[in-house]
């Protein structure tokens, strides 16, 4: 993603702006000690990177980042934050020289590796010339689905997606097995307040999840 071919100077400027915001937010996350602010800023980080993904034409990735990174992770981290202290422990200065050197070396190696990457939107890049091009050519005849992303995800690679779905299910199951299903709190609250809640939840919620 080092070269911007498609847009002009304006797109390049917006790119630099987004990446600069990401850099500043990451710095702020690294320096802050309040967990609430860190959780919120990580949501901001996801949202800005989602906008940037859309700028480089990865609409589906951006959408997923906005939904998962900014929405779901923030909510789950908020829930996890309530289980622990509100602030991180302060660290001694200069105790992080070793990790800093490792990060710097890894960053330099990654930047060096990007020199070999094909430019954004390069028609001769492996992603655009190989099987991706074949999908674009045969998709309409094969499936009749306009969105190639959907047909690749659900039809051509249906078995992979089955695996992904099973992974998501297993992740939920593992968390629930480790932490409990959350029913203890429900039972406790129901026992303390036998009268139904002051605010009855909307009935449509039942249909929504099923």
């Amino acid at each position, binding site marked *: 993603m080092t070269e911007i071919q498609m847009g002009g100077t304006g797109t390049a400027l917006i790119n630099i702006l987004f990446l600069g915001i990401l850099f500043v937010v990451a710095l702020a996350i690294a320096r802050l000690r309040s967990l609430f602010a860190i959780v919120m800023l990580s949501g901001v980080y996801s949202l800005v990177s989602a906008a940037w993904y859309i700028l480089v034409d990865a609409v589906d990735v951006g959408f997923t980042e906005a939904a998962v990174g900014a929405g*779901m992770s923030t909510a789950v981290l908020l829930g996890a934050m309530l289980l622990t202290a509100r602030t991180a422990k302060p660290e001694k200065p200069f105790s992080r020289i070793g990790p800093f050197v490792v990060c710097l070396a890894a960053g330099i190696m990654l930047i060096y590796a990007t020199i070999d990457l094909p430019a954004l939107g390069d028609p001769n890049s492996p992603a655009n010339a190989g099987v991706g091009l074949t999908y674009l050519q045969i998709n309409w005849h094969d499936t009749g689905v306009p*969105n190639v992303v959907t047909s690749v995800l659900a039809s051509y690679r249906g078995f992979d997606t089955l695996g992904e*779905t099973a992974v998501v299910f297993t992740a939920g199951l593992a968390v629930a097995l480790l932490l409990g299903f959350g029913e203890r709190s429900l039972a406790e609250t129901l026992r303390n307040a036998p009268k139904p809640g002051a605010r009855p939840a909307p009935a449509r*919620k039942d249909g929504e999840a099923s």
Partner: protein
Amino acid sequence: MKGDHHMILRVIAKCLIPLIVIYGFYVQFHGEVGAGGAFQAGIVLAVALILNALVFGLTPTMRAVPPWLARSVAAVGVLIYAGVGVWAMLMGGQYLEYQALFGEPPGGHDGQHAGIILVELGVLCAVSGAMTTIFYALAGRVAEIRDEDW
């Protein structure tokens, strides 16, 4: 409802949650022609539920969508997905070969459409159920979110 704490939050959330749910279903059913799909739709639906739990409290939310329902929905989603594959096998095709669902010749697209819609329905159920289960597991460990924790 105690006092008027978070009144603005409650009113806005009450307006937003139905919109979020509608948007989730839009993403789900529009995935064939636009960006997004069942994974994102499942997350959006779960987030609507989580917003409800954060603003209106965990107990009413758990009463509306009990934890057993959430985890059953997740399991049923995976079963729907796997079941489409078995259906294709019963019709004489290979596992998850949507072309075989209705025994169509090549070029017919009904099986593909039906297969993709069913599979995405399974993914929607699995993702929204699993995410809700994860949230319940985390949030169920504290009784309620106290005011000073906001």
